[in-house]
């Protein structure tokens, strides 16, 4: 995880033994590789199980990918600024509990309240990281433990089934266009919005800049501490969104419902081509990454591989996918 780095004393830029790189636009095929992997994976699974190619199965996969995508997008902001958020999946679990608890009484307002709460939770983590000047790995680990306990307490450590007020969120999975659920449509729209904001607004590249060289950003008057805090706030917000979709999909909230999605979400960001060292990545990459990870997670089983060997295949394909897709031209050192 070369993820995470602390340097209070920057060393001088090392002499690089890498060859002068080709301009960044020289290899467009590189950017297509994650997509190629996705298509190849889908085709491979379909060869073994043709039923996989039906719209029905594919939309199922897409639906499954949404929580990973949303968590991955939140993770992207944190990874872009050079950190990592281990608490995001636990926050999604907390969301499902809050939503399931509040929906019957408040209806749609519960969603707004939850998102606000989760954003604040993320901002707290971010503020501790930014102004405490401590590694995000440890702080978010502490947050993971703390908010996990809060989920358990709030839920009475049980699953809360949503019956009354489910209408406020059921449209996310039940409604849609041509079998494509509104959760999918909204998530893709969200990806497009993030992309547009990052590209077309004056400060859109600020996460990238802070991730590439935080000190230089500081010296250029960028409020880097706020940017980092905001990245965690966004991670909290997206964990909230992911939690709402999970609640809609499962029609219930539970204190550990989303916990298992932490590594897939990080993997989605990395497989899509975000550098875990920060500064490189974007929402479209996370979208493709989330789909790849989801197909990987379910593909082995769908293709009918002996359950005993599925994990081996899964592990091998994860490595293979990253080996093929990672853009090494912009990383002279792979950690």
């Amino acid at each position, binding site marked *: 995880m070369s993820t995470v780095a602390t340097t209070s004393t920057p060393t001088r830029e090392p002499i690089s033994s890498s060859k002068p790189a080709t301009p960044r636009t020289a290899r467009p095929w590189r950017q297509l590789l994650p997509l190629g992997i996705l*298509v190849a994976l889908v085709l491979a699974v379909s060869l073994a199980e043709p039923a996989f190619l039906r719209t029905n199965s594919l939309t199922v996969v897409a639906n499954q990918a949404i929580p990973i995508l949303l968590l991955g997008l939140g993770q992207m902001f944190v990874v872009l600024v050079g950190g990592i958020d281990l608490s995001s999946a636990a926050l999604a679990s907390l969301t499902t509990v809050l939503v399931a608890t509040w929906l019957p009484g408040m209806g749609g307002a519960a969603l707004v309240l939850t998102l606000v709460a989760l954003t604040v939770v993320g901002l707290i983590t971010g503020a501790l990281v930014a102004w405490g000047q401590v590694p995000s790995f440890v702080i978010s680990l502490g947050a993971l433990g703390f908010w996990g306990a809060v989920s*358990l307490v709030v839920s009475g450590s049980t*699953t809360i089934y949503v019956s009354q007020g489910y209408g406020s969120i059921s449209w996310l999975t039940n409604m849609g266009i041509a079998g494509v659920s509104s959760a999918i449509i909204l998530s893709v729209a969200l990806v497009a919005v993030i992309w547009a904001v990052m590209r077309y607004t004056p400060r859109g590249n600020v996460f990238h800049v802070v991730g590439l060289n935080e000190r230089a950003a500081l010296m250029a008057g960028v409020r880097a501490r706020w940017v980092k805090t905001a990245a965690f706030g966004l991670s909290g917000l997206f964990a909230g969104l992911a939690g709402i979709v999970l609640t809609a*999909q499962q029609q219930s909230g539970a204190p550990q419902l989303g916990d298992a999605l932490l590594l897939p979400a990080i993997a989605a960001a990395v497989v899509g081509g975000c550098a875990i060292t920060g500064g490189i990545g974007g929402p479209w990459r996370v979208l493709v990454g989330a789909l790849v990870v989801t197909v990987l997670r379910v593909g082995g089983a769908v293709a009918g591989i002996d359950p005993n060997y599925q994990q081996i295949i899964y592990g091998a394909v994860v490595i293979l996918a990253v080996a093929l897709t990672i853009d090494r031209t912009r990383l002279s050192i792979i950690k």
Partner: protein
Amino acid sequence: MSGLGRRFAALAVAAVATMSLGACSSTNSGGGTASGQVSDDDMIMVSAVRSLTNPYEAAWVEGSQAYADSLGIDLQTIVYNGDSQSALSQLQSVLAGGKTVLLNINPNTTADTPAIVNAVRAAGGYVVTQWSKPEDINPWDVGDNWVAYVTYNGQEEGYDTTQTLIDSMGGSGGVIALQGLLANDISQSRFAGFEQALGEQSGVTLLDQQPADFDRNKAYTTTQTLLNQYGDQVTGIWAATDSMALGALQAVTEAGRAGQVKIASAADATPEGLQAIQDGNMVATYTTDPYYNGAMGLALCYQAATGALDVGSLPHEDRAFYVSQTLITADNVADYATPPTAEQIVDSVQDPLGRNDGALS
């Protein structure tokens, strides 16, 4: 992503969509079909479990296999390794195969149940869920496709095993309780049974209770720590499962107190647990007969699909009920030492409601 990338993505999506159009005509028309007459050839049986390295679930799958083989119907085993998403996706892809799915599932979490039964209902299959479901959703609310929900009386398990433990301690002393994951309903009901039994007497006191997350190692370290704290006060340990009881046993043995500290497990009857009872290292466990569990769920679905069982007319107590189970102690442990044969398993589920032990309390 570059402009080229976006164009390529659009192309890929279009291509996939075109391909799928041709393929989807054969999809089963879904939705709430009543108990019908589906022929064996159009069926596929699915047994879904968390992992195959868990003795309980391994035996469950063996039971399922025996039953499916007896009818000559294909069995697909879904192993989801504790990943709810994986469970649902695998199920969806089997459902998309077009055959009528008969599903017997041990859901990963309570929260998974609605999504699973809705998916099966939409595809016109039949499902029996086991062990856990959200309290306020029931099979008869969803329809005939959710044939039944069966579970096992955790409170009874906790109560009976605690009684045995108290007896073995001679009715006095101090006991430590190890729960499973805090958020787990089953663990909670077993612990409720434990508390009930403890409350009905006054000789044995509860020294401490901790969650050990069903984890053998965590049970080991927790017991080790608590043994240090309470010393000789501890004369009994109750654990919600065999694996935690075995972890505790390890710590007790290392502390040189094997035999002095009595250990009871509330569930699972794993080969190791049974061995420990035979060796006198444990006093009790409970069996729900995993072979039966694995076969019975499929049998219910099969009878619903063939029309042998009219699901719609079943009373609620036959749609959500406890399955009878047996306390295992040193007295009867020998009876469970050898696994049942395939014939025995198939015979036991000829009347899949035969072990109905009453409606959920």
